[in-house]
């Protein structure tokens, strides 16, 4: 039965991903992933495209391997072996979730300067309602837009480059003061990108992350059951095998999420 559940689940994921593909094909412009996902924890603003997501992928593949090893030990009825490899699988799952938490936080709280529809500048992050990954804006437009930007906007732009003052403090300064603090050469301004990107990205990776989370919960329960000898009394480790199927499915889905959002 597990297989039929997984099949239905793959239709859910498939529907999400295909709907994403359909919307993406209906747009004239779509940001390329190497520009969007190019940061690594602790590396600041250094341009490292796809590095962090490679680490996440590696963690998930690795935890899939430890899961097969746990199932393998289960076939031999080796309780300690099962407990050991299940524990590593859970560690892998938690690492993956932590990575995702960092990635989401980074995308949402990041400060990107964008050109608004009113031809002024604003600072936004990657959220459900805003996408800063449009094409770059040329210097003449930036200068014009800067002149039209209200003081609150200028305060946010200064804050995006330099966190030594709060936005409130900056907003209290005069227009000339703020303009003096903006370095035109460092100013990187983009247009807004397609809004649908945020909804699909957070929706699909969130749904996958939720699967990882429930997998970790299931694996933890299996670990406790194995540790207390429940499977030894039953005489078989079939439950471990089913938890394993679910866990591999989560890995399998990631192969396609990785493909659709990060690679192409």
């Amino acid at each position, binding site marked *: 039965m597990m297989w039929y559940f997984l099949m239905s689940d793959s239709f859910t994921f498939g529907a999400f991903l295909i709907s994403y593909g359909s919307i993406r094909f209906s747009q004239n412009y779509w940001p390329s992933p190497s520009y969007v996902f190019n940061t690594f924890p602790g590396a600041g603003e250094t341009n490292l*495209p796809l590095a962090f997501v*490679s680490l996440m992928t590696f963690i998930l593949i690795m935890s899939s391997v430890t899961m097969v090893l746990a199932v393998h030990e289960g076939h*031999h009825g080796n309780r300690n072996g099962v407990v050991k490899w299940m524990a590593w699988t859970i560690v892998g799952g938690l690492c993956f979730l932590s990575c995702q938490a960092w990635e989401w936080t980074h995308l949402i709280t990041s400060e990107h300067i964008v050109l608004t529809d009113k031809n002024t500048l604003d600072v936004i992050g990657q959220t459900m309602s805003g996408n800063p990954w449009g094409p770059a804006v040329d210097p003449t437009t930036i200068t014009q837009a800067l002149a039209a930007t209200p003081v609150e906007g200028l305060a946010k732009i200064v804050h995006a480059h330099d966190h030594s003052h709060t936005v409130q403090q900056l907003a209290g300064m005069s227009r000339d003061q703020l303009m003096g603090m903006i370095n035109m050469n460092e100013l990187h301004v983009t247009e807004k990108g397609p809004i649908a990107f945020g909804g699909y990205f957070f929706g699909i990776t969130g749904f996958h992350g939720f699967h990882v989370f429930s997998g970790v919960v299931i694996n933890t329960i299996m670990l406790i059951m194995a540790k207390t000898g429940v499977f030894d009394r039953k005489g078989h480790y*079939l439950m471990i095998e089913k938890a394993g199927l679910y866990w591999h499915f989560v890995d399998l889905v990631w192969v396609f999420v990785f493909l659709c959002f990060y*690679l192409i």
Partner: protein
Amino acid sequence: MEHANAATEVTIHHEPAESTKRIWKVFWILLVITMVELGLGLSLYALDLPEGLRMHLIKGVIIILSLAKAYYIVSVFMHLGDEIRNMIMTIVVPLMLFIWFILAFIYDGNSYKNLRNKYDRYYQERGVQQNQLKKETKPTKFGGKD
């Protein structure tokens, strides 16, 4: 009762002697495929190819490699390859629907784009402009500052 229930769900008893060698072999295969995919993904970035045949070719190779990865995970890690043939077919045949889904919905998305470009001049001009700007934006050096 529990035992009887469990037994009915076992379609095949795996050989307990199966060695972990196969598992590690598949792990290395998956790792290498992922590295190649990343290499191709980064080459898309480094070459900054225009929309065209070469770009679609690279993306096509990445998709095929991902399908190979999916095959290894399902057949070895999930042991589907060791099940009886009819069981495999009940799982795989319904998934064939995806081929149709993908073709139909992507065609639909594409046709929506074409219709909009045809009847909404502003939308079309904006798209041309954006893609022009995209081409002019050269990628930052790998490891350089953003």
